């Protein structure tokens, strides 16, 4: 076992001490942070630059004061369309609108033409459409027998509120916490997917390198092939945990810095959210944030965090041992290896494509069976975790997963011990199947 420890140490230290590892580990979160800053900066910048819009109002119902806000500056043109349509840019306007007169009050459609030098964003178009619609609707109301008050009274806004209190049986989550749970599900599912591929292929490359370098024959005249494989998988696993841990800490730090330097200005945020922001005018950004925090707090972190770590370990080991087996069977030719990768790719792809259906019904049959199958469970169970799956299911899934990990490591070891000594032969699945039963 002392030898296994030596192997783990080497596999871990040689990777962690590499310059490329240190750079990637430090720069990835920084790059991510930079991206956040830049996009935040650009977003707030584009909000600050108001668009100047001139309107040729043939209907005569528009009021520039009412239309203008932090994003748009409306002016009603004093000139007719045929005089301003060539000169609006020179006059300092970004956009020219032509609102024709309303001839038929019963019509629910109205065409407004626009002229612009630049391409307009979809959001801007929708916002302007919204403004026009509301102005025209107000005009139509004023021309009808109904008064504005009656219209306002007709509005209905239904909110589904969870009525399960602490002394009642049942689920207590509301819309926000369900939203938070879904986001976390995606995040954990995709994180597992990334982990499996990034670190699994790291194991595979390393196995291939040893085989091609021929160091493997020297190694296995000192240690058992199984020790070498297990040491490698464990060493790389520790690298994965180190890297993810540093990323988490750095990302958290960057988020804190980000949110403090770019303190959301409620006006600005409302402007950014455009129409939705205006509709939400009553709700301040502050209460939105507390809702989110409440959603985050409502999750069962005591179940989620330790379970996620377990599924992370199980998922990593089950797949990286498969990657090791495939690496041992590959020759110098990566091309022919593509075919050998299929048994790994297929279950991962199925699992990741099941994330969406599972989220639609996180405690349905598909979710339950999917999160029991050991090749899927490392991705699907973490995705279910935020939705309070029954604890017995989580434990059963873990037991199945870890039993399968033991089997898979044994299974991969059988292939590995033969594969690493095979040279110059194109390997088929049939051949690999035979390796399983080869005596030592």
């Amino acid at each position: 076992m002392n030898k296994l420890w030596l192997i783990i140490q080497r596999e871990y230290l040689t990777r962690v001490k590499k310059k490329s590892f240190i750079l990637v580990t430090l720069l990835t979160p920084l790059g991510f942070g930079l991206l956040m800053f830049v996009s935040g900066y650009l977003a707030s910048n584009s909000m600050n630059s108001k668009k100047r819009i001139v309107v040729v109002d043939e209907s005569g119902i528009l009021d520039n004061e009412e239309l203008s806000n932090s994003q748009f500056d409306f002016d009603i043109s004093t000139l007719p369309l045929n005089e301003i349509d060539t000169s609006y840019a020179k006059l300092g306007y970004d956009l020219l609108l032509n609102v024709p007169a309303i001839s038929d009050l019963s019509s629910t459609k109205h065409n407004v033409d626009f002229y612009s030098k630049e391409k307009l964003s979809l959001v801007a178009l929708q916002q302007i459409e919204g403004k026009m619609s509301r102005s025209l609707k107000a005009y139509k109301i004023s021309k009808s027998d109904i008064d504005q008050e009656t219209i306002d009274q007709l509005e209905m806004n239904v909110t589904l509120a969870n009525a399960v209190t602490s002394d009642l049986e049942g689920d207590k989550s509301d819309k926000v916490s369900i939203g938070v749970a879904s986001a976390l599900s995606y995040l954990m599912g995709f994180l597992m997917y990334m982990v499996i591929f990034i670190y699994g292929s790291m194991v595979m490359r390393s196995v291939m390198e040893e085989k091609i370098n021929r160091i493997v024959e020297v190694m296995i005249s000192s240690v058992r092939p199984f020790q070498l494989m297990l040491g490698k998988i464990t060493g790389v696993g520790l690298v994965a945990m180190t890297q993810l841990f540093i990323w988490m800490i750095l990302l958290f730090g960057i988020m804190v810095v980000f949110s403090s330097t770019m303190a959301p200005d409620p006006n600005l945020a409302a402007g950014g959210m455009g129409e939705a922001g205006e509709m939400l005018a009553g709700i301040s950004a502050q209460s939105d944030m507390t809702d989110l925090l409440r959603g985050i707090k409502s999750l069962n972190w005591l179940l989620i965090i330790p379970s996620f770590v377990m599924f992370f370990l199980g998922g990593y080991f089950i797949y990286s041992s498969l990657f090791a087996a495939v690496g041992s069977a590959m020759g110098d030719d990566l091309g022919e290896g593509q075919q050998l990768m299929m048994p790994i790719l297929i279950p991962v792809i199925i699992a990741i494509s099941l994330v969406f259906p599972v989220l639609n019904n996180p405690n349905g049959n598909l979710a339950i069976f999917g999160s029991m199958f050991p090749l899927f469970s490392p991705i699907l169970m973490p995705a279910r975790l935020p939705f309070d799956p029954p604890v017995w299911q989580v434990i059963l899934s873990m037991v199945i997963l870890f039993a399968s990990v033991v089997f898979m490591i044994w299974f991969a070891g059988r292939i590995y011990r033969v594969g690493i000594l095979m040279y110059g032969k194109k390997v088929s699945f049939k051949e690999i199947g035979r390796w399983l039963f080869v005596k030592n």
Partner: protein
Amino acid sequence: MSILSLQNVVKNYHNHTAVDNVSFDVPKGSVFGLLGPNGAGKTSLIRIITTITMADSGQVLLDGEPINFNHPSQIGYMPEERGLYKKMKVGEQLLYLAQLKGMPHKEAKQKLYSWMEKFDIISWWDKKVEELSKGMQQKIQFIATVVHDPKLLILDEPFSGLDPINTNLIKDEIDQLNKGGTSIIFSTHRMEQVEEVCENIILINNGKKVLDGNVAQIKIDHKENLFKVEFDNSILNIEDLNNFEILSSQHDGIEVKLNAGMKPNDLLGSLINKGAEINSFNEVLPSINDIFISRVGESQE
């Protein structure tokens, strides 16, 4: 007493028999040659001895004990295909390999320092392996093979790819180790390379033992009564020597095969009678290569 003893070892692979009922003994402290053409089963045999694989049947005894997974620390094996971790520093790598052989860190470091000083390469300690030339890497590989003082050293084609200077250097070190009591197995298909070094050999072909034993004895057993006599050939009419089978005739002598019942003295007597001035007289012993070819009946490189 044998350091290594193989008894009826068989190893089958999927569609061929790599080692077919092979038995041999390596005397303690000897230099032993494992000879055979490429693909004869040498590497398969070595893998069994080094516990990389296991024999399907038969027994392998190291120093009298059935081979087991504790034995690798007593064996030093340098494979034909050399391999080192290219990105690792020389010192780190040697330490790692020595520790995997069961040496404590401190002792390994001391030993490695003394070996590297001996080869005058201590300055390479912090260099990466990929920065070294192939010959340099061979030296590192050799140190990795012997640093843990193995009882048995197995060298597979140890001189391939080495220049003459390094070949001699390694040869001298192997000699030193042998004098210190290490038993050595040379595996090679270059038979002429080892006949002078090895006391005992085994010749294998197609997984089967062709012959084994003491080199000198094997040569005597396979001698064909060939003699080379040197004299001034130009003044003699050798056609008169019709009692003898003359294989070749040069201006400075002849090679003769003596028929059964004839003694070397008979040949010398008749030559002297003819008035030849004998310069030298030698028995010609067959080379291992010749013996192999005659036994297997096929040509080697």
